[in-house]
């Protein structure tokens, strides 16, 4: 198996709901479209689609949480800079 191509395919299936739906509909065709080998296409036909959907949803929640955390972190940093700058302004002789 060409591991990197297979991992890229799995990453896309986890992240992209459209690609996942097409994969569920016709696993072999979607795997062939990604250029995977015959052996890899066959392996993907035996995918546990229920587990795949549950895992994908769990990953989507994690990405959302990370985004929120990143936003809060940036907002906190901007606020800190704003108040630091204001304090410096008042300290100026």
């Amino acid at each position, binding site marked *: *198996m060409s*591991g990197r191509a297979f991992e890229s395919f799995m*990453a896309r299936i986890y*992240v992209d709901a459209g690609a996942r739906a097409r994969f569920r509909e016709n696993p072999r065709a979607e795997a062939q479209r990604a250029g995977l080998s015959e052996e890899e296409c066959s392996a993907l036909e035996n995918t546990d689609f229920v587990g*795949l959907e549950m895992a994908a949803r*769990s990953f989507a929640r994690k990405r959302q949480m990370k985004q929120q955390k990143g936003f809060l972190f940036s907002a906190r940093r901007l606020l800190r800079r704003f108040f630091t700058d204001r304090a410096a302004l008042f300290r100026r002789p």
Partner: protein
Amino acid sequence: MNAFHDRLGLGWRADLAAGILSHLDRIDLLEVIADDFFSAPRREVRALKTLSSQVPVVLHGVGMGLASCAPVETKLLENMARLVEQVRPQFWSEHLAFVRGGGMEIGHLAASPRTRDTLDGAAENLSRASRLIGSKPIMENIATLINPPGSTLSESAWISAILDASDCDLLLDLHNVYANGLNHGYDPGDFLRQIPSARMGVIHIAGGEFISSPDGRQRIVDDHLHDVPDPVFELLEEAAAISPNPLTVILERDGAYPSMDCLLAQIELARQALARGRARRTALQEVLL
């Protein structure tokens, strides 16, 4: 600490900071999520350095994706190397997982196809990480809701082969073993006996949630939002009975935080499970002698 020099620790979380700092007499070490500090302000890293000068600290990475055919990004290794240099942890750890592919970030730890390719890729990545960071990571088994498609090796055989090829030790997450056993239909006790006990150095315990899947089966999500269930303490006793090494057991909790007393009670239950396992090990050794 017992005669085997086992230790019990807790995952450092900002929400738990006050409770942890006021109970350091009952917590032997703290595990800090390294990725939270890679782009943190300098004063936060200074605070972490101060913490590590007061209590043993270990760093736990979550974003490298070392069990992959793709080479791990140098920038990620440099981030960890810098933090290790600054904090001087007792050790650092990461996961046997991939987290990205083809330019897409999955967002969390995904189970790699258990093949010869990912095994070789992991060994290569671990070798590079060890060289650049200056010490070998301790590698953790992950929980997965899906048995990774394309696998040609069992989970225990794949993990054992990576540890062997990389000469890394295992961070054995017992809730992940319990969850995978239930989700994929194997006996967690058998799994414990199939992995090399001499590689077991660190153990995670945590809790998760049973959910009904659309196919009518029950699966466990390893969410770290619940108390440690009894079967995990039973697995901890088994691990202590078979491991020849001093064990570092770390309780992970990522949210829905209970009282500090509740967390300390779970650490105490872990201490008791360790003691039972170690007593069995001692009794067996005496019989063999």
